[in-house]
């Protein structure tokens, strides 16, 4: 049996590559029983990948893992589960078609008397027991699909916590929780720690770490930066370690000046998603939209762009813009970079040139019909130079580029159309620090050139450093408007989660 303080996990020189991209490059990590070890880093730094290795998700990693003093090679999730590893995933892995209870005990269903059968009554009772122990306000018989994101998160947590679990990984569990739920979650985590379970706590929200972590390890661009006891660390040290430079150097000086109103949104509503959204965007302005995951911020932006149906009125440059659709938005000069690059952004299998040109093929074709390879290549070259896309090869297949460069290609697609309004939904998600700084400069350049930019981001420091104004969205409503410059990140976060101050 392990005593508190014994090392239960040692990972050494872990390497993992995806196609052309080296996501983890010789990372060391260790964990003791009864310890909460925070793993921090920017999006794309490799935190989740490291924990996915531990969860047995990849069979092709390099390096050594010793668990409870024994060398192991983790090649599938079943094996990791059997060794007592539990993971609460960031992208929820609950099953919408099953009930809460069925989800909690998925893979561990109690059997009946006849082998192979399922004892549904025992399943309900066991699941209820777990819910009672955690004091989660859920009913075992509820179907999961209609639950809120936060509640589905609780289901996922309840699923990972089993009797025999000895090592738990929380992958950004607070990303979509309100303040009350975060507080409750921390209590749960401390309770698990007291039972001698080793806990890995992944986050990029530094402010919460002093409340919960014993030690902290920082990753940057797939490499290990260092491990420190939390007590010896200041938040500013951590952010410096994460970014590789002081935070202030990341952002360009503000040099845009908001002018005339270019886009007016009035009473935009979609039942169950967002209500009565009214705001204005001016030319040369960066308008930030802040809110938790699931607050409706993405849906609102998609509705303005026409990718989602909604009641309400949009006025573009003084003219009512009716029957919105992505096609018509494009024609009228509104562009939107989607949050999910893989699903809604890149066209896998096509070249960089075709990806950059996808929205302007009409202009790059003879008589608007016959593709003109020379014009397509020229357009791609222009964007490669302007955005610094690496490698600078228009013929390259898009999926072989790094996340940051794929993102630049998608941005290049919209810039090829030269839109008046550009909506950016989490534009810096999953890209490296250098590319982020570049993205920030580009946004500022575009705003300075008179474009209207709507910026949605979970990284609140991006919003306060780039935006002129910030709309705070909570439960599908605009609850506040804050100025960008001078607003404190913590104040903005508080506005996003607090109840009852609207």
């Amino acid at each position, binding site marked *: 049996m392990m005593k508190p303080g014994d090392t239960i996990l040692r990972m050494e020189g872990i390497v993992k590559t995806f196609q052309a991209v080296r996501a983890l490059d010789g990372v060391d990590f260790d964990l003791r029983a009864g310890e909460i070890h925070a793993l921090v880093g920017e999006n794309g730094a490799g935190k989740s990948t490291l924990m996915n290795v531990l969860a047995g998700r990849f069979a092709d990693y390099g390096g050594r893992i010793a668990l409870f003093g024994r060398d192991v090679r983790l090649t599938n999730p*079943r094996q990791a589960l059997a060794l007592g590893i539990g993971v609460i995933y960031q992208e929820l892995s609950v099953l919408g078609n*099953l009930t809460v209870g069925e989800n909690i005990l*998925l893979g561990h269903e109690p059997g009946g008397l006849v082998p192979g*059968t399922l004892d549904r009554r025992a399943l309900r009772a066991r699941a209820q027991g777990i819910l009672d122990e955690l004091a989660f306000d859920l009913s075992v018989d509820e179907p999961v699909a209609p639950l809120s994101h936060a509640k589905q998160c609780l289901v996922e947590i309840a699923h990972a916590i089993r009797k025999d679990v000895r090592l738990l990984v929380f992958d950004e569990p607070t990303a979509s929780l309100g303040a009350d739920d975060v507080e409750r979650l921390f209590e749960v985590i401390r309770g698990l720690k007291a039972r001698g379970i080793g806990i890995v706590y992944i986050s990029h929200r530094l402010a919460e770490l002093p409340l919960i972590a014993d030690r902290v390890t920082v990753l940057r661009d797939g490499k290990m930066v260092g491990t420190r006891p939390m007590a010896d660390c200041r938040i500013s040290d951590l952010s410096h370690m994460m970014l590789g430079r002081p935070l202030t150097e990341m952002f360009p000086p503000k040099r845009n000046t908001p002018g005339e109103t270019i886009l007016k949104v009035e009473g935009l509503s979609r039942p169950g998603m967002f209500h009565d959204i009214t705001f204005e965007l001016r030319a040369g302005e960066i308008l930030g939209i802040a809110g938790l995951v699931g607050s409706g911020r993405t849906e609102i932006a998609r509705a303005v762009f026409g990718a*989602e149906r909604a009641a309400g009125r949009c006025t573009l440059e003084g003219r009512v813009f009716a029957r919105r659709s992505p096609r018509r938005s494009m024609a009228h000069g509104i562009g939107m970079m989607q949050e999910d690059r893989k699903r809604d952004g890149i066209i896998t299998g096509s070249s960089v040139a075709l990806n950059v040109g996808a929205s302007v093929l009409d202009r790059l074709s003879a008589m608007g019909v016959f593709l003109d390879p020379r014009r397509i290549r020229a357009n791609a070259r222009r964007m490669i130079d302007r955005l610094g896309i690496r490698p600078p090869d228009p013929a390259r297949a898009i999926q072989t580029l790094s996340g940051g460069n794929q993102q630049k290609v998608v941005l290049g697609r919209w810039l090829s159309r030269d839109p008046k309004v550009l909506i950016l939904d989490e534009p810096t998600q999953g890209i490296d620090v250098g590319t982020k700084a570049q993205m920030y400069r580009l946004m500022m350049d575009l705003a300075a050139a008179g474009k209207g930019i709507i910026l949605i981001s979970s990284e609140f420091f991006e919003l306060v450093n780039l935006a002129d104004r910030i709309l705070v969205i909570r439960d599908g409503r605009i609850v506040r408007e804050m100025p960008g410059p001078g607003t404190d990140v913590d104040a903005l976060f508080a506005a996003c989660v607090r109840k009852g101050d609207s």
Partner: protein
Amino acid sequence: MTRDLGAPKSAKRGWRPSFQTVQALSVVGLLAAICIVASVRSATFFSWQNLVYNVLTNAAYLGIIACGMTLVMVAGGFDLSVGSTTTVCSVAAVLTLQAMAGQPVWLAIAVAVAVTTATGVMLGAVNGTSVAYVGVNPFVTTLSTMLIFRGIGLILAHGGQTLSVPLAFKSVVGRIYWGKVSLFGVAEYQVTIPILIFVGVFAVSLYLLHLTRFGHYVYAVGGNENASWLAGINTSLVKAATYAICGVTCALAAVIYTGMSNTAQASSYGGLELVVIASVIVGGTPLGGGSGGLFFTLIGLLLLSVIENLLPQFGVQEEYRNIVRGLIILIVVAVDVLVRGSGKKARRT
């Protein structure tokens, strides 16, 4: 407190939480409406003779395969090869009976059923291995095996000859299809043996899908394969098993069909897969899986079978019938998509 609030909900939901009830109810309604109209307009429709001997007996062997198909489709799969699998199985059945000529008849039939079932499992396992372990898309896999199995049937039948059951066995084998059993000893209420076999297969499938861990995992894999895998479920085995079970149901259908015709032909059963898949889809099990179930398939099958029975009775010419069949499937699914608002306009998942 929460528990008390939860209990009646679950009682009301019955077998499992289902998001298909709209479609199921509309199909039941449509079926009832058609039956009522048919009973009024047609003298023969609402008779034991027509319903049991024509509609249900005909539906029975399709229904047996539809049970297997439902498992495959709830798990998110698809099987185009069931027609060809049934062909190979029926050829195997007759060949075995031929080889057993001269043996006691019940022994011969028992061996033939065993060989046929084994053949079905094997062919299903080929599909399952390709889909679950190699990772070839179900549509591509079963499109290919549909052709391959059809070819195997041709070879086994010596290039498409009609194989006959040995004369000595004919009357006994024929009873598998033509035999009748009285219900509760009442002579005028007789059911056919295929219906009884179907009821048995349906009951076993129901048990498998709803009362075993395997069945639970079939829904889990269809709901979200990746999440199921992460929860430690052997998703490949679950998927492969559904195809093997589907193969078994094909074998049972082949046994019945052999009883009916006393022959096996490599050219039979073309198009059978489409009727079976249509029953499952009309019932409300979606392509992609995760929900639906056997009762849904049953009502889908009944709807299609009743329509099939009524088309000639209502004087719909042969050349128009496919249009009617196609329209029914399209309309039922389209209505469901529109009612639930999951159509093109609500693209966000």
